[in-house]
């Protein structure tokens, strides 16, 4: 593609999404500019209703903006046709949702291979890749299990394996630990960390400060707009002991 101009793999400018008309109009996303570089983990954090899920839908091509541009993998997607958009969603984006959205009647490995099959891979290739991915998320021994036989944390790891199935440019996660207890949250965070180390670009929207704190860059969102941005990488304070009440 000739129009890949820079290192950013996901970019939005002047993004707006409005629902309703006149006095009842709601601006769910109200003028967002965003630039995510390849390999970066970005968290967008805000209270429920701040527009972060809508934003994620716009960025992943699940919904179209009222105004503004979305560029994904070097291609502008906000105006392309339905078929082309569906193709971008299948190939360039991996989605992870709070409620997992696994098919209950399919086993873990069948859930993971499904998106590769839909993208036109051969059954043999799709299966081999699905098995590899389940191994990567630490669930090789659960490949033949139905979702109902897995814990919440395991289901979310299957969903993450599925999101990786087509080697997406970016993984978009919407409140990925919202349904998990703290041990399962830790499992998912460890997995995201290993994806990050492998160079996967990741955008997470959440109200959970715990996930947000693991990102490279944290954006605060309120009333449809970005209000603050913090880079969290860099030196550590070495204050953990003090936080637990231990003096030096």
């Amino acid at each position: 593609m000739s129009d890949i101009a820079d290192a950013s793999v996901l970019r939005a400018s002047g993004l707006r999404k409005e629902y309703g008309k006149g006095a009842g109009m709601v601006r769910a996303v109200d003028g967002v500019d965003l630039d995510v570089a390849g390999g970066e983990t970005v968290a967008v954090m805000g209270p429920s209703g701040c527009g972060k899920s809508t934003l994620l839908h716009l960025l992943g091509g699940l919904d179209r903006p009222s105004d503004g541009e979305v560029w994904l993998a070097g291609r502008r997607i906000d105006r392309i046709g339905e078929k082309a958009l569906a193709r971008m969603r299948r190939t360039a984006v991996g989605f992870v949702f709070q409620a997992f959205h696994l098919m209950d009647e399919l086993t873990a490995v069948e859930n993971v291979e499904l998106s590769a099959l839909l993208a036109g891979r051969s059954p043999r290739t799709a299966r081999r890749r699905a098995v590899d991915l389940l191994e990567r998320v630490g669930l090789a021994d659960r490949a033949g299990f139905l979702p109902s036989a897995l814990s919440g944390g395991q289901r979310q790891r299957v969903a993450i394996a599925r999101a990786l199935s087509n080697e997406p440019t970016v993984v978009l996660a919407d409140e990925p630990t919202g349904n998990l207890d703290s041990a399962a949250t830790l499992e998912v965070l460890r997995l995201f960390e290993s994806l990050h180390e492998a160079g996967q670009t990741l955008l997470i929207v959440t109200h959970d400060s715990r996930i947000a704190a693991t990102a490279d860059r944290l954006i605060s969102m309120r009333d449809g707009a970005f209000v603050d941005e913090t880079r969290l990488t860099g030196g550590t304070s070495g204050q953990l002991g003090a936080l637990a009440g231990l003096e030096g």
Partner: protein
Amino acid sequence: MRQEVVLALLAKEPSHGYDLRARLREALGPLGEDMNPGQVYVTLTRLERSGLVESERSTGLADRPDRKLYALTAEGQQRVAGWLAEVSWPKPDLAEFHLKLVAAAAAGLADPLTIVDTQRRELLRRLREAQRAAMAEPNGSDAALLLEGIVLRLQADLRWLEECERNWNRRGSGS
């Protein structure tokens, strides 16, 4: 760290200072690494002086010099029992931060929202550090549980900062 912690560790069996240090480090994980290595020995000496522990010299192994083996005295045992039954909890100093915002706003010296933002960034950095340490611990380790406590407290503080922001935002906009 209170003397009673070292005292209570001795309740299991008479031990060398070295063993107590090892047990502390295991329970504290990465937090134990910051501990002053001499602290246990200093504490044991103080405890012995106040009659809560007693020591005898044990014969050294080939690769180690002679070491003192410490044991609780009857008084020490009583102190441990009292400490275990005691109800205490650290007091976070929320009032100071709250009054900082109140005073800054009243005097027009600083924007309370800027103070909240700065504080939030600092807490997020600490949360990141605690979270990373927790991710590096094996599931179910004693140290992981302690780190989880730090993470949860920081999350609670961050939630309170959200409330502070909402409150001062509203006042600032005059509604």
